[in-house]
């Protein structure tokens, strides 16, 4: 599969996803924080959307965990909720998205999520990433490597 053919929905919430905070039966006591703060209600940022989806999955887990011990639906609900969290993290693994929950008194109160850093401006103190090979680069005449920057498409042959 070519990456250009990857459906965008693979890396962002399903179209049918909705913020549970907008539902009339929303219970804020079960809503975990994200990196110590409450998520904004609306964000077009893909990372924020994934966060909201994951926090929602933990909200569902909390909802199940809050059911009375021994309740017939509780254990199955907890298993289902944990599977949903796992599936979400599987789905977003290619972009390195995962959350680390913190539980207090049996409920998830916060989820720590790493956001990939934006590429930093180069400075003497910064650490650059590894160099990478550009096959054929050394065959280019030196004069083509001077002057104003030009976009080149490499064959990676």
């Amino acid at each position, binding site marked *: 599969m070519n990456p250009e053919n990857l459906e965008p929905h693979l890396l962002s919430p399903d179209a049918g996803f909705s913020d549970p905070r907008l539902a009339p039966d929303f219970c804020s006591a079960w809503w975990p924080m994200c990196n110590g703060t409450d998520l904004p209600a609306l964000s077009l940022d893909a990372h924020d959307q994934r966060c909201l989806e994951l926090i929602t999955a933990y909200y569902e887990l909390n909802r199940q965990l809050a059911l009375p011990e021994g309740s017939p639906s509780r254990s199955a609900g907890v298993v289902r909720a944990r599977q949903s969290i796992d599936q979400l993290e599987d789905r977003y693994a*290619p*972009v390195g998205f995962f959350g680390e929950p913190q539980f207090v008194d049996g409920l998830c109160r916060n989820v720590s999520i790493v956001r990939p850093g934006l590429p930093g401006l180069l400075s003497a103190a910064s650490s650059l*990433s590894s160099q990478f*090979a550009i096959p054929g680069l050394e065959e280019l005449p030196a004069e083509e490597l001077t002057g104003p920057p030009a976009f080149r498409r490499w064959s990676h042959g």
Partner: protein
Amino acid sequence: MDKYIFESRLSPGDIVMLTAAVRDLHRSYPGRFQTDVRSSCPDLWTNNPHLTPLDPSEPGVRWIPCHYPLIHRSNQEPYHFIHGFIEHLNQELGLNIRPTEFRGDLHLSGEERERSSPIHQHLGSRSPYWLIAAGGKYDYTLKWWHRRRWQEVVDQLEGQVQFVQVGEPGHYHPPLRGVLDWRGKTSLRELILLVYHAEGILCPVTLLMHLAAAVPLPPGRSRLRGCVVVAGGREPAHWEQYPGHQFHHTIGQLDCCATGGCWKSRTVPLGDGSELDRPEALCVDVTPFGLARCMDMISSAEIADSVLRYCRSSSPKLP
């Protein structure tokens, strides 16, 4: 005596290779140079006997930015990464440095060698352990194996291998079950000491792989430190693999790495504004789960088996 300050702000794994070049410079030309470094990882140079503090403003001190353009010929020519900085220095300085060891050059102080491992302290015994890095930096996500595969390896070796998970905060290191979680708990220097005491290393192509070879062995240990690398088809194996390592690659097994490493960067764009998101830097054979095909071809069973080979051969021979 010529005086050089070598500069590199590249990643720690790259800097390990620069330590080898500095060592080999001095071995090839004993007493001819004074050298100092400016790098992104001072911890890799601690106790290094080849460094002399140099002031760049001092007359006669030459500042040398270090690169390894040899990488651009890595698919065609029979060189290891260890040749990379050496070749560049040879060209820049008109020298003929030759590699003298198949490893980077890290040095531990006597106190560091005698210090017991925090893992052994935690375990309450000197039981052997393996370090595992189940992820990496966000820039080259093509190097990642799926988090579920790492977990499968740990699960398959439960009761046979004690894994200690390490990883830098801010990088992609999803938590594994059944391991000692040492993520984010070490400085680079402390990580080096964990490697020193480790029986083996399990990782993708990353700093730990270089450390597995470069960190000295504890006294009494004659066999090379074990290292199993989940590599795929990004890098040519001969460029990365060290003696004694089990390097699982797919060069020659897929069209996209038919004759060498693809040197691509990512499986899918991260949207972080990096040029590594550009189409020409993206993997051309991605599975529906977002894993590079070359990484997907490597099974958890074969990796677990590779680890076990080191462990089995550590056991007493059966009569």
